[in-house]
Structures are given as C-alpha cells and as structure tokens.
C-alpha cells in the first residue's frame, strides 16, 4: 500500500475514533495483504503531526494514544458551541447599572443613597465582569471609596455612540411603561428605523439591536 493511502487511513481513523488510538490499534486496521509496517504508520503519524502546523487542530500523543484535538489558541471561540445563557438580571442590577450610567462617576454608597437600599458586592462584580462598568477613580473621603463609570463596551452593547444618546432623566421620569419614547435612540440605531415604521423614531426598538448574538445559541 502507498504511504499516502496509509496516511489517509490513519488520519480518518484518528478523526473517526472516539478515543485516542495506539500504534497497535492503528496497525490492526490493516490486513496482511495491505503490507503495512509499523514504520509506515509512524511515518504517517509524523506526516499528519507536521500537517497540522498552522491549523485549528493538532495531533497529539497522550497516555492512551494519539488523538486530534482543538488547539488552545482557538478554544475560546470553539467553547461558545457549548455556551448557555444565564437567567435574567435582577431589577437591582439594572437600577445600579442605570445609576452608574447617568450619575458617573459615582460611588457604591451614592448608589445606595439614591436606591434607598444596599447594593450587593455581587452586582458590582457582575457588572465589572461583563466589562460594562469599571473603577474610574476614588473619592477623597474616609475609606477612599471607588468611583464607577461605564465603559465603551457598555456603549457598544446598547449600540450607542455616546451617553448623550440616552434619554435625559427628565424624559425618563415622564415615560409611561408601554410607550417609552426615546428620541436619541433612532439616531443610535439607523437600521432599526424601518421605512415602513416612521414611529420607530420615537419608540424604543432596542431589543432588535441589543440582542443580536443571543438569538443563535449553537448549543
């Protein structure tokens, strides 16, 4: 049998097997008539290992044999195949986020003062982990509390060019639940302003913008 054929069979077997394959296991795929030596299989493995250079996968030898595996470098993207969504954020978190956006730079104590209740550390952690808020400085008072502000990622997520595109506090106070008017919003999301819906300029069309990559969960 030609070396190229041996290499292709070894390659396909390694990809098809559910576990790592040892040299004897690979040799067992061939019959006497194929006249395949262990050296030829070793050569195949060497060739395949080299062939992975510059690819998203690699051929490695582990304790129980050879296997193809996903390279570490691309793992963060591949891992999204098994991602799952967490449950919705609490009202407390949304209030905290909104206050940071509108009153930044603001300390946790100041947020608590407006909300009238404490802000749990986990809420701040979640917002920091999501990279929507960060510490921008410290207030020069006893305890030197951290001052929080919003980030560029926060603006990007809500498709805003700047915070000015958020409605003013005065406007927010007047909004009624069903029809939240948001003049600046239309400017922020030109795509959302469908020609068929002229009132899109004045109504919130955010959901379509804010959740684009949440709709296709590969898991």
């Amino acid at each position, binding site marked *: 049998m030609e070396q190229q054929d041996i290499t292709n069979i070894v390659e*396909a077997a390694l*990809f098809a097997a*559910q576990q790592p394959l040892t040299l004897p296991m690979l040799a067992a795929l061939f019959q006497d008539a194929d006249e395949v030596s262990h050296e030829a299989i070793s050569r195949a493995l060497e060739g395949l290992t080299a062939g992975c250079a510059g690819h998203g996968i690699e051929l490695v030898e582990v304790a129980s044999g050879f*296997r*193809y*595996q*996903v390279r570490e470098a691309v*793992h963060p993207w591949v*891992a*999204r195949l*098994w*991602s*799952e*969504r*967490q449950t*919705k954020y609490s*009202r407390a978190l*949304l*209030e905290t*986020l*909104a*206050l940071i*956006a*509108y009153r*930044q*730079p603001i300390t946790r104590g100041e947020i608590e003062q*407006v*909300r*009238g209740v404490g802000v749990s550390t986990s809420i701040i952690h979640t917002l920091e*982990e*999501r990279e929507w808020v960060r510490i*921008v*400085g*410290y*207030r*020069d*008072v006893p305890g*030197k509390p951290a*001052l929080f*502000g*919003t980030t560029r990622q926060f603006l990007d997520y809500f498709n805003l060019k*700047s*915070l*000015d595109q958020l*409605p*003013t*506090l*005065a406007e*927010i*106070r007047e*909004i009624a639940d069903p029809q939240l008017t*948001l003049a600046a*919003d239309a400017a922020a999301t030109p795509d959302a302003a469908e020609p068929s819906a002229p009132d899109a300029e004045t109504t*919130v069309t*955010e*959901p379509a913008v*804010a*959740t684009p990559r*949440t709709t296709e969960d590969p*898991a």
Partner: protein
Amino acid sequence: MSTDTQSIEPVAPAPDLVPGHVAPQQAEIPLALVRGQPVLQIPQDLYIPPDALEVILEAFEGPLDLLLYLIRRQNLDILDIPVAEITRQYMDYIGTMHAMRLELAAEYLVMAAILAEIKSRLLLPRPPQEESIEEDPRAELVRRLQEYERFKKAAEDIDTLPRMERDTDTAQAFVPDRKIVKLPPPVDLREMLLALRDVLQRADLSGHHNVEREPLSVRQRMGEVLRRLGDGAFHRFESLFEPAEGRLGVVVTFLSLLELAKDSLIEIMQEAPLAAIYLKARATANAAD
C-alpha cells in the same frame, strides 16, 4: 428482449416451484442468507427444510413483489402481462407454500383472488359495442405493480446512497476543555431605563435627591479624565484635551473638569498667574490601599 413468443414458451415452468426443484430466485441475487451463507440455488435433489423455504418466502416483500419477480424472470413487459400464464405460476407458488404448511400472509390469497377475477374477465366474450369503453381488466393491477416497482427501485436507490456508519463517519477532534461557558443574559435598554425611572420615583418620594438635567457626555468624560489621572501624578491641563475631537470635545472635557473640581474629585494647581496649570486626582487606588 421480451416478445410474446417467449412469454408463452415454458422457459420458466411451474415445476420450478415444486419442492425439490429450483426455487424462485431473483436473477443472480442470493435468495437469502442462511447462517451467513448466501443461498443462490436450492439443491434440486435434496430435502428442503421448511424453515429454509420460509426464508425464501421472506425474500419476497408480499404478493406484488412475487408477481414482479415472475414477470421480470421472463422478461415480460409489465404493460403486457399474460395474465393466464402468470396466474398459473402464482397459484403454483401459493400451492407449494400451502403444501409446505407454511403460514401464508393473507395478502397472498387476496392477490390470488384478484388474478382469478382478471383472468375470468379476459376470458369472457366482450360485447362489441362496449369494446372501446371498457377498461383493460389488467389496468388496475398493472398500475399497482408499477407503483410498487418504482418504490422498490427507490428503496434500492436510497440503499446505494453513501450513508453514515456504512460508508462514512463523522470526523471529530477532542476538545480538552468542554465545560459549558455561561453566557450573560441579554439586557434590554428599555428595561434598564424603566428600572431607573422607578429608582427616580422612589428617590423623589424620599425627597433628598434632586436630579438635574445635564449632558451625559460630560458625565462620561468625567470618568475618562479620572482614569487618566488615576496614576496620582500631576498632569498638564492641555494634555487632557484631544484636539481631534473638535470644539465640542474640548467643551465637554472642560465642563467635565469643572464638574470634577466642584465634586472635589480633582485638584487644579497653578503656581503663578499665566503659568502652566496642573491637575491631579484627589484620591487614587494606591492611596486607597
């Protein structure tokens, strides 16, 4: 090819079907697998165990399949079946099965009745005036045979499609870390604003927080400036401005500096009139530790 003369010649006569003779077989196809061995032909002079014959019977997928076999074996055109001859062969086969005391599916007997009926109608003299109107008595059977045959063929075609497990398998690579990534939930801006409205209403009720109208870009810039001053060192006033932002950007930065000063978050220093102005955060991370 098939001609009518062939069809009436006893090329495939009934004795075929008598036990001890050559049993029905589909061209060169093995009739069945008995203990893994293909059975191409039943030994003529040997006793056939009943279960072997049963296997042969199972080689047919019902009466339509058996009829098709009888027709094809003699290279007959399906549109032109010699009903009398085919019926005789079919009956012989059924008879053999009976003789072997094999359980025969009811469908085989129903087909026998249909064939007998067609044969009798063909034998009846037709009134001349009705000749053109009356349908060929075989038409319905021919239609069913063709319909069955096309799906028999379709099944064979599907069987030849390259398929998983037999002709291919998926190729997969191991993923070292397969733990599930938790994606944060989506947030609707409107929801966040409604949350803020509620907070504001609560704050208004408690009465000690008055929220004025102000450009939010100034608030945003305040954070940005604070971060730049986060090292605790003095920064030149001019270095905080980004000329590329234009006049509006300069105004926003200036207003943010005033706000920061008013809020005692920064110190502004000038050693002498017209000298360089320096700014510094009043508190930094290091100082906080």
